[in-house]
């Protein structure tokens, strides 16, 4: 009798749970932040935008982080979303959407979707060239193209050249940098910087036998918190 009771309990336990009644999100929304199709490079973890899915009681945003090369991806449920880039995000302004007449973009997701988001950067770093100079320095040249030239135009505060031992290169991840004040730039079409490679490349104190560094140019625009960057480039020292 007791044994039967035991079996009943076991059977009940085995059948009492159902499978989870929600599927995990499976649609990938991915793409890049671009200006006229050219990706806008930003720092590694400072820029994000928000997705809002209305109709679910209390509202809260899904924050999507933008990678340093301007790409992003998010795993989402199918549905209708509103996409907004908060005004404080990134070295750019959002473009007024033709459909909503605001900075909000409407977005329907069913299945995977690849979508580039056009933004209006204050500047673009064009023709960035980073190369080894001698054995212990990196030189860079680039052209700063001013994109926003109306009342919202901003000046360049500082141009930096950053080096790091990993592919993450930005204002909080660097082992060496040099800078040039915006007021000292005589020709924005021809901005030169040079930075010395530290003796020990590893920032963590272990010996540096790494024979390459990563470099990129960052532009601080006055009154804008996030920096604009060029693409990360590997520099081989030997």
């Amino acid at each position, binding site marked *: 009798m007791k044994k039967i009771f035991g079996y009943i309990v076991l059977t009940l336990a085995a059948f009492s749970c159902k499978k989870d009644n929600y599927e995990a999100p499976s649609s990938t929304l991915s793409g890049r932040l671009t200006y006229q199709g050219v990706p806008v490079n930003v720092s590694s973890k400072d820029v994000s935008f928000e997705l809002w899915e209305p109709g679910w009681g209390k509202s809260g*945003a899904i924050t999507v982080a933008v990678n340093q090369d301007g790409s992003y991806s998010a795993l989402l449920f199918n549905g209708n979303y509103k996409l907004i880039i908060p005004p*404080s995000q990134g070295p750019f302004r959002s473009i007024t959407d033709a459909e909503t007449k605001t900075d909000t973009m409407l977005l329907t997701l069913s299945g995977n979707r690849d979508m580039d988001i056009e933004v209006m950067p204050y500047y673009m770093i064009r023709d960035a060239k980073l190369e080894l100079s001698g054995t212990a320095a990196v030189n860079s040249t680039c052209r700063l193209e001013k994109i926003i030239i109306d009342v919202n135009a901003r000046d360049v505060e500082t141009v930096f050249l950053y080096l790091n031992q990993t592919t993450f290169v930005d204002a*909080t991840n660097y082992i060496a940098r040099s800078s040039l004040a915006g007021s000292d730039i005589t020709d924005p079409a021809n901005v030169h910087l040079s930075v010395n490679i530290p003796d020990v490349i590893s920032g963590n104190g272990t010996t540096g036998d790494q024979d390459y560094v990563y470099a990129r140019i960052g532009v601080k625009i006055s*009154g804008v918190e996030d920096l604009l960057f060029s693409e990360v480039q590997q520099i081989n020292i030997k």
Partner: protein
Amino acid sequence: MKKYLLIIAAAFVMISGCVKDDEFLSTDPKDLLTDDAVWRNPDLVLSVLADLYNRYPEQQTITNWAEFTNFDEAFPSESGQYWRSKQVDYPYDWWNIWDYGYIRDLNLFVQKCQAANELAADVRARFVAEARLLRAAIYFEEVKRMGGVPLIREPMEYNFSGDPTYLRHARAKESDIYDFVISEMDTVKTVLPDDAGIKSRATKWLALAMQSRAALYAASIAKYGVSTPSVSLPGGEVGISADKATAYYQKSLAAAQEIISSNKYSLYKKKAEDLEENFAALFYDKANNPEVIFAQDFKLKSGKTQEWTILNQPWSSAEEQQGGRMNPSLNLALLYEKLDNTYSPFATNNGNDYVYYNDPKDIFAGRDARLGGTIILPGTKFKGVPLDIWAGVMYWKDGKYNTITGDNFGDLDSIPVAGAPKSSQVVGDDGPIDGLQFSAQTGFFVRKFMDPAVGSGQIGTRSDVWWVRYRYAEVLLNAAEAAFELEQPGLSSTYMNQLRERAGFTTPLLDADISFDRIVHERRVELAFEGHELFDNKRWRLAHKVWNGENISAEDVVSNIGKANKVNTMIYGLWGYKIFNPGNPNHNKWVYKVMKPSNVTAAHRFNLGNYYSRIGSDILSNNPKLVKNPNN
């Protein structure tokens, strides 16, 4: 007969045994007090008020030590807290506060107490004034952290109509909240007692001190907010227009001067024979303290005690197997000037050689007494026990110094030099040992608020040293800052020199010496570990400059001392070493090195979105009238 008796008795029980239903359900509770009972008895009202005092908002205090280690004042020497010095960005929801439960309780108290006719009029007036002061204090805290918040001055009631939207209120302007705090203080100061002996309840002088601080905050946000135009909202919920600055500075100065000219308070100078001890005693001496205006008090054997001393006691005199958590930074220690009013790093090197000191304390000689009063330095004593803070032995071998050290408090080892004793101590009993929790990983321990009483370091006893929220020195600093901003440097230097004289300076600052950098510097050294740094840096809009996320080197730390916008993103320490070089005149002398604890891996970055903390998304979606704070 017996049977009848039984029937009658039963019938009687049936009839009278039960009370009417409504009476049955309205029995007076025996475990809580009703409104009626409370509002006729002053003692009970006082206990309600005590609860409200107990919920006074705080950010950094002696009861949450780790908050002090988020910036540049101290390093957290506890293995569970190292993440604080490894974190780059401050989360946007840090320091947020949305305590409308407390505000409602205060509103209810004000409303009910005003209607409590059975209390004597003067008693009632004082209670109401105290609650209004506490209400202003929470609004002040809200505006410091969140900007303008909905200003609710009456308890709101829901009418159960099914539509609660009428309870939604929009955010007031930032300046409106400051104006509210300032005007409330004008009202309550006439009612509150003017007895300077009252320290843990509101007085007229607390009202004035709070008014002075609030007006100063509003003034500096108006003045320095210009430098961060993106930290503002079009509706004024964040940001104060620059033309209001002068009026706020005047208000702040006037409130401070009312306290100063009353002569009810003075700087603590009871132990003039030892200025360092005097400055430390200012915080633990609770008997007739002439400087403290308002404090959170504690009492031994009452259940309301604090453990600051247990958490931070040096290992050498520890009464438990713990302590030493807060390690003040070299960045802070460097700020304390030499007695000739000059800034100077600690002399560690003389050209290519070290500077050799006979006594570990000598490197700190001839400085502002507040250095030793705020920080426990190597070579001093705590609770009568000499500190033993040194990082290792530097022995001379093969034409250079080599270092030997241990990995536990006071480790013994043999120095590998011929003729050295077989076993000798190679590291101090207090550390510093890099990565060993409770050791002085920056080379310092905190002294402010430390209790010298025996037993204060025991879990079974704890400490009753109070947490000073307002003191006279801050009032002088408020006056000095407001006077400086109002272009009265003469007045400013008068106030500032009083503090500096107490700290041992003999040459007063001249009017021409007073600058913004000086004002910032004086507040930092006087008010370290009193919960001011974050909010001061916010209102001066310096926070995003001093915590800008850029790595700093040892050379950066020791240069530009006393500059208000000096980058201060990483904590450094100063480690002492004992020289072992028998036969050499430097044998057994001490040298120092600037170093960075290995657990300091990140440079702090305060983003523009940190100036006003994020309002939670649940709060925003409950009340669509609220606007989000900028940049976060």
